[in-house]
């Protein structure tokens, strides 16, 4: 590339830039400035699990997916494919399947269902422990709680949303395509928020991969697999007030010192 060649010759890129007379301008943002529109969208986004019945206009879904299309990806491999489901019957069928799978998993792994001291609890707990050793993140206490809530019909997988977008990943993607799917979905979710729509990520949608029948119905074939789903609809209420959250440790190297900030 031309710029690499210039660097190798020891030339100063900024000088060359100035010489062109077309130097890019630097946007000055003052300290403590008000949040801009994009930042505000990020701060106001919540995971929305209760939707109005009104269907989202098709052009809005297209607008969101267009933003997903422009997401960055490793080696620009764009390892995604979208399946948009807007038929209530189909979504209800997907829901039913995922609930049934959660029921199976929950009764197989959630030992808290069984009485303390019982043989059943002991056996299930041992099984859960073993599974935990192999897949510790899958059996984090939070998803386990959610899984059992779904199994008991107290929580919907697809939140009865009018539109569900399945994010399919091309398993042949460069490096770690899962990350690219996450970035792509973030674009979609933030675009939706800016259009007044609510969204929620649904990781349990991965369960659909286990069913040949559902894969066939949804047109999911190798090398593609369902990695995440995003439910879309108009939120109930106005969940736009800003909330408090954890702060996270930031290790900051500057001026020859190491500093911890939050």
């Amino acid at each position, binding site marked *: 590339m031309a710029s690499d060649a210039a660097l190798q010759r020891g030339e100063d890129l900024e000088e060359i830039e100035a010489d062109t007379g077309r130097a890019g301008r630097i946007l000055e943002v003052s300290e403590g400035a008000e949040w801009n529109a994009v930042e505000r969208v990020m701060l106001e986004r919540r995971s929305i699990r209760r939707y109005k019945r009104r269907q989202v206009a098709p052009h809005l879904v297209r607008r969101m997916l267009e933003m997903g299309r422009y997401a960055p990806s490793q080696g620009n491999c764009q390892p995604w494919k979208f399946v948009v489901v807007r038929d209530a019957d189909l979504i209800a069928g997907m829901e039913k399947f995922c609930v049934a799978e959660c029921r199976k998993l929950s009764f197989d792994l959630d030992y808290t269902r069984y009485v303390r001291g019982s043989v059943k609890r002991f056996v299930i707990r041992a099984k859960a422990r073993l599974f935990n050793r192999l897949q*510790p993140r899958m*059996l984090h206490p939070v998803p386990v709680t959610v899984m059992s*809530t779904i199994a008991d019909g107290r929580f919907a997988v697809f939140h009865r949303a009018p539109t569900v977008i399945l994010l399919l990943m091309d398993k042949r993607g460069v490096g770690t395509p899962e990350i690219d799917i996450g970035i792509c979905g973030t674009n979609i979710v933030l675009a939706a928020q800016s259009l007044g729509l609510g969204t929620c990520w649904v990781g349990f949608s991965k369960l659909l991969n286990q069913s040949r029948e559902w894969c066939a119905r949804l047109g999911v074939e190798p090398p593609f697999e369902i990695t995440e789903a995003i439910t879309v609809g108009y939120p109930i209420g106005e969940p736009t*007030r*800003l909330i*408090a959250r954890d*702060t*996270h440790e930031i290790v900051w190297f500057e001026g020859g010192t190491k500093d911890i900030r*939050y």
Partner: protein
Amino acid sequence: MALLSKRERRHFPEWDDPTECVFRRVAIDLDACDGCRLCTLVCPANVLEIYKVDGKKKARVKDSQRGCISCNNCRAICDTGAIAATESNDFVGYYRQLGRGPFEPPRKF
């Protein structure tokens, strides 16, 4: 020193032991709560319910249920600002929260 000891790395919390799986509870200002029910609708862990005190509807955390993940969706939807989670959830062993500072609203730098 390692962030997690060997013992912690091996230890998985008992999901139904409240000392091992600390799901936080939300704080509700009963004077400000007008019992509109929106928080009970949006709670992803389904831990909120409406009850009556002195003939007035108010929100509270269900007794039998744990699972609040401190998402604060209830705070985001509450018009009166009566409800909020003020701490993050925490677990022991392998799942212990690490490198977290205090709960803070969005800050301008």
